[in-house]
Each structure stands twice: as structure tokens, then as C-alpha cells.
């Protein structure tokens, strides 16, 4: 494997070596430097939606500016400040906006506390309006880039922007895998299995799935739709999934 060129940069006065092409946020994380972030996940491409990962940079040629660290690749001679006064004040407003948007979200509240922000001056939305969704589209990106079915997307525009299935109806594409549930940074999507039924509830639409029972242990373990999907993609037979993964080992 060809090794990428290394560059030298400074983050919060620490001199670091990093592989060229990596994003500032990832390099900081690898070196245990905390930068708040909500909308990234290593499974998908960065997208720059939450803006919380803002940092102040000075390039080798002395240019200063604020950039989203999840989207900015490291470069030779870069100086990064993750917590200057300027950053702190911008970040404060960003988290306050999110606090007002999702008054019900514990994740946002915890993050605010961590950033030393107690209250928001902005009028609180009704907690039922946006639910806990911050519109980062991480769920939709994972559904598209990883699961490969693109069942959900951001719809409408402006203040009416929402994450939903097409027409807010049950989606023919969704396989009920729950990947969107796992990646949502604010737990805005819920999934519940009861008996042979799985329910997935997005902020503004929901769906039900029938689960298959494991022939050995008897637990309901995977949606029929997901089996169909896996069988089709992998060219296996849907009957290969009568036994759950734990019983197979």
C-alpha cells in the first residue's frame, strides 16, 4: 500500500505529524484533542451540517480564518486553534440555536453543558415540532452510502425542512435495518421490537416491519425485508436466514 505524504501541523500548540489528506477533526481525535461535533461518522463522507466543529486556522502563508474541521484537510505548516475566544463565542451561538430547536434533546443539553453554556436566548420551539432532529442528514447519508437503499431524505425547504420518508408514507425502499437509528447523534429516531413486529419511528414518519423467528433459539431477530435485501445483494437464498447469527456460531 502506498503511504501518503506526512505533513507537520500545530493543534493547540502541540506539534503533530499527520497523513496528508486527513481532515483536521480526525487528526485532532487521533491525538486526543477534543473538538465538539455532531454530524460526522467514519462510515460516511463528511458533510458539514452541524458547524460545531469550527476551528480557527492560520495557514503557512499567514492566512487566518474559521473552517469546519470535519471538512478541512490538514496541510503543511497549518496552525489550528480549537478553543480560541472567537471559536468559543461562535460555538456558543451554534449550540444555543440547537438548544432552542430541540429543547427535548438530552444530547444537546449535555453538549451545551460541556461547552459551558447554560441557557439559550432564542425562543424555544415546541418540542414536538422538530422532535430531536438537527437536520444533519447523517441517517439519510448512512442509508444511502452504507445500506444502499436511500429510503429517507431531507424534504421541504427553509423552516419546514424535515427528515422523512417520501410523501411521509411507509417507504418501499426501507428494509428496517435500523442503521439510521444507530447513527443518529441526537437519538431522534426510535426503533422498537415487540414480538414479531419492529417499529421504526423517524421524526415525522414511521413504519412497521415483520420480523423472522430464529429456528433454533426462537427469538425474532431480523426484518423479512432486510433478509430479502441481503439475499438479493449477496445472491443467497432467503431461506439461509432461518437461524440467527448468534445461534450459528
Amino acid at each position, binding site marked *: 500500500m502506498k503511504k501518503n505524504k506526512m505533513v507537520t501541523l500545530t493543534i493547540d500548540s502541540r506539534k503533530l505529524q499527520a497523513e496528508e489528506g486527513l481532515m483536521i477533526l480526525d487528526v485532532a481525535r487521533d491525538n486526543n484533542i477534543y473538538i465538539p461535533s455532531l454530524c460526522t461518522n467514519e462510515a460516511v463522507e463528511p458533510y458539514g451540517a452541524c458547524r460545531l466543529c469550527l476551528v480557527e486556522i492560520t495557514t503557512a502563508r499567514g492566512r487566518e480564518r474559521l473552517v469546519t474541521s470535519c471538512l478541512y484537510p490538514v496541510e503543511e505548516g497549518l496552525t489550528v486553534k480549537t478553543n480560541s475566544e472567537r471559536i468559543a463565542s461562535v460555538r456558543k451561538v451554534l449550540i444555543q440555536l440547537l438548544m432552542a430547536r430541540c429543547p427535548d434533546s438530552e444530547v444537546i443539553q449535555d453538549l451545551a453543558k460541556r461547552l459551558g453554556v447554560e441557557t439559550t436566548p432564542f425562543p424555544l420551539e415546541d418540542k414536538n415540532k422538530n422532535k430531536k432532529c438537527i437536520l444533519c442528514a447523517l441517517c*439519510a447519508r448512512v442509508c*444511502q452510502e452504507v445500506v444502499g*437503499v*436511500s*429510503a*429517507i*431524505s*431531507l*424534504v*421541504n*425547504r427553509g423552516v419546514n425542512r424535515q427528515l422523512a*420518508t*417520501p*410523501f411521509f408514507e411507509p*417507504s*418501499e*425502499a426501507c428494509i428496517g435495518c435500523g442503521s439510521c437509528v444507530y447513527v443518529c447523534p441526537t437519538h431522534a429516531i426510535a426503533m422498537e421490537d415487540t414480538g414479531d413486529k419492529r417499529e421504526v419511528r423517524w421524526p415525522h414518519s414511521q413504519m412497521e416491519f415483520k420480523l423472522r423467528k430464529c429456528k433454533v433459539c426462537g427469538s425474532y431477530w431480523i426484518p423479512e425485508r432486510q433478509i430479502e435485501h441481503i439475499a438479493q445483494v449477496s445472491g443467497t437464498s432467503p431461506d439461509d436466514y432461518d437461524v440467527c447469527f448468534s445461534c450459528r456460531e
Partner: protein
Amino acid sequence: MGDENKELEETVGQILEKYRHDKGMLVSVLQDIQAKYRYLPKEALKQVCQGLLVPLSQVYSVATFFKAFSLLPRGRHLINVCLGTACHVRGTDKVLEKIERELGINAGSTTKDLKFTLETVNCVGACALGPIVKVDEEYHGEMSTDKVVSVLKSYT
């Protein structure tokens, strides 16, 4: 009903053909459908998704993003009541109220018989003639509540 569906399917098929089933032309395809039917029927969107091999979630996302697209049937005539400053000070709100009462709908919606869709705009650039009510491409200047009924009547 069956005939209508078939006609829709054929028309959408032709539009898809015109753009050679090119994914990149999604917006143009939707524009053509909107121009032809004055809205984007759900069946048409599903056909577009199959025809361009674009996920329905993406088609729906684009269809709900642009103001030029409507997902609900639109009236044969589009009424735009100007709420710009100049029209406002000359009492356009009274005119709007009167139209809403006459048509039995609120701004932003369409009459049941699909004759009119009522909307508001902020300044159509004819301030000297305010209050302005624009119907399709026609400008009705110096509108008053008294004139509303006769203006509406002139459209079929």
C-alpha cells in the same frame, strides 16, 4: 380514471425519453411535468424515480425543495395578491380578505373546482398602480374590494 393514468404515464415517458433518462436532468424532467400538469402527481414522481434510476427519496427531496414545484394540484388560474409595502399601505390586505372570502380558501391554497390558486407576493414591481392583483400574466391595478367579484368573474 384509467385513461388519465395512462395518459400521464405516456406523457411522463416521453419527457423521460426527451432527456434520455439522464439522472442529471432530474430538475428539467420535473419542470416539464410541472409545466404540463401544473403540479407533480405522485404517480409521475414514482415513474421518474424508475425512469432515471434515482431513489424516490431523492426525487421527493428535490420536488419539495423548489418553490416552482407543487405536489398538490394547482388551479387553472394563479392569483397573486401583492403584499409589498406600496400595495400594503393602499389596503391590499382588505382586497386579499375579500378574495379569500369570495373563493372560500386561504392564501396558499386552491379552490375545489381547480379554477384558482391563491397566493401572495411581495412587490411585483408595479407599485404606482397598487394595490396590484396579478392573475396569470395579467396585472389588475388600483384594486379595491368592490372590483374583486368582477375581476374573478372574468376568468373561466
